[in-house]
């Protein structure tokens, strides 16, 4: 019972505050801003507990975002890359004669896309592995060289040539001990164990620094929404 009483008092207080705000500020006239503001409050209600308003907003969010996805992929992928080149601009016909390779360049991916739909047929379910193998294989092939460059070369090169000073020394010790922490095939005992331990210390310092650094970003998101509610919606502040 106590919970219910607290809830009622709480909501009355909020209502009173809300009405005074409406009177003091000049709330926006556009119904769209009102919709956005109400949906914002529905999502924030999740902080108190999972409730009807949050469920409504969540399900609406899923529906609208998938609807948006359908429209974007219909327009930018299906129409632009398959339908137009195939039937309208006919990119495979260059000054009069037919280019097989250009034609295939549109048909092959479309067929692979259709193969994806083979999952619906009970027997031929395995055909779906062909487009998946293509996406995973091509994706892996694309990632290997650029991963070498971006992840390994850039960072190793940077560790090699830092000014020879205490900080530089700490940098090198940090990189080496972190790498040693990720050694899998040897037991972390003795010298290896101590270095790995030093590695986890460096990792924890990095996580602490990254956490502390991110707080500002997260708070600024709330500031952004507060600005929307107080300025754009209620017109309370300049």
């Amino acid at each position, binding site marked *: 019972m106590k919970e219910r009483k607290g809830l009622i008092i709480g909501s009355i207080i909020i209502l009173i505050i809300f009405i005074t705000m409406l009177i003091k500020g000049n709330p926006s006239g556009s119904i769209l801003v009102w919709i956005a503001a109400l949906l914002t409050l529905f999502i924030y209600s999740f902080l108190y507990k999972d409730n009807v308003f949050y469920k409504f907003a*969540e399900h609406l969010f899923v529906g609208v975002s998938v609807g948006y996805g359908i429209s974007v992929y219909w327009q930018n992928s299906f129409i632009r890359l398959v339908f137009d080149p195939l039937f309208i601009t006919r990119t495979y016909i260059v000054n009069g004669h037919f280019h097989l390779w250009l034609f295939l360049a549109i048909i092959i991916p479309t067929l692979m896309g259709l193969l994806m739909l083979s999952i619906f047929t009970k027997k031929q379910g395995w055909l779906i592995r062909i487009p998946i193998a293509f996406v995973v294989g091509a994706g892996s092939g694309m990632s290997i060289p650029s991963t070498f460059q971006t992840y390994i070369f850039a960072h190793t090169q940077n560790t090699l*040539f830092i000014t020879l000073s205490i900080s530089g020394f700490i940098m090198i010790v940090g990189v080496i001990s972190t790498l040693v922490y990720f050694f899998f*095939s040897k037991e972390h005992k003795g010298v290896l164990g101590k270095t790995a331990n030093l590695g986890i210390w460096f990792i924890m310092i990095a996580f602490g620094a990254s956490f502390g650094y991110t707080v500002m970003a997260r708070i600024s998101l709330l500031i952004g929404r507060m600005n929307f509610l107080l300025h754009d919606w209620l017109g309370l502040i300049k």
Partner: protein
Amino acid sequence: MKSMFVIRILRIVFVFLVSFLSLILAQEGLEVPGDFIEEDTLINILAPTEIKAFDTPNDAGENITIQWRAPKDEASIITGYEIYRSEDKYRGYEIVGFVGKGTLEFKNRTKDGIEYYYKLRAKASDGKCSPFSEISKGAVSRPQFFHTGRINALVAIVVFLCLLLYFVSTAKKGKSLFIRRIAGLDALDDAVGRATEMGKPILYVPGLSSMSDVATIASINILGPVAKKVAEYESTILVPNRNPIVMTVARQVVKESFLEAGRPDAFNEDMVFFLTDSQFGYAAAVDGIMMREKPATNLFLGMFWAESLLLAETGNMTGAIQIAGTDAVSQLPFFVVACDYTIIGEELYAASAYLSRTPMLVGSLKAQDMGKAIIIIVIVLSFILSIVNTGFLLSTHITNSFLSTIIEFFQNMFNV
């Protein structure tokens, strides 16, 4: 005679030690004094000199690079350079580009197979221009078939491939293979067990990235064994997805795992489902699932962005056991703070070997370790070399040429 030799050795060692210590204590590196700027005289603008035009290397052709030396400009009134081009050495020059002050190179778009001549002039802020520079030699643009700047990536791939093949093949012979403990993966077993006891489902989030993201592939490799355990424990698993291809693959994996565990009937299609491809729509929907279905175990394995804490903190509110694993360095701090176990970076990629213990996969971990060992050796070597080289610099005021070339080689070895 021997004593003279010994003294000389001692002196070098002594100098080397002093330089090593002084370097460690010196906070900043070696300062090079700035060059002296003389007084400026009559303000007239000189033309750029030493014009070089050549086919841009390592490109798809149709591109010529022009380089030049900046003229003397004490009053720094030059705002930029105008580049002129013609197919005939003496006539018909047109302007083809303009670069701001400070850039001494210009890449010009051309047609392959045609010889072009270039000349430049500097432009001052008051609109006046310098006389034209001399005309560059003719240059023809061609596409290259091999990108010479990327040999280091090729060598690295070949070396790593050999390491991988060697360790994978030797692993087949079944030598005893050790993997150091990964707490998060050991905890998987009893985490799934706990959920079954409480009769609650297990929530498995395979990350928010696409199927070509290697972190997602690593996550799918863990989903297999986890789903098998879930089937054996006769529990249920929920796999919400953000990417359609990942959803399709995950459904295949879970279906096969239930088959292998001998309970094909327990698998139902809707265990693996699609929510939305919007990052925060997905986070909102998964939070809703956590609050309503109240899974006892939450697994977040794969690639995550800012929504990691949204999932982990809501999961923490419901009191579930949470195991997270990602290679997204910026999200690891939030998983460490909000989850019971966190699998950090490369440990995620060792997971499939760790769980399946198939010799070949465990063998590949050795290749990764070898890669790390090589990088550590290179770092240590380059550090020692630069110490010794600086030692020479301090003692004999010139850096040893042999050492400098090695350091130079190390520097270029990792050029991107």
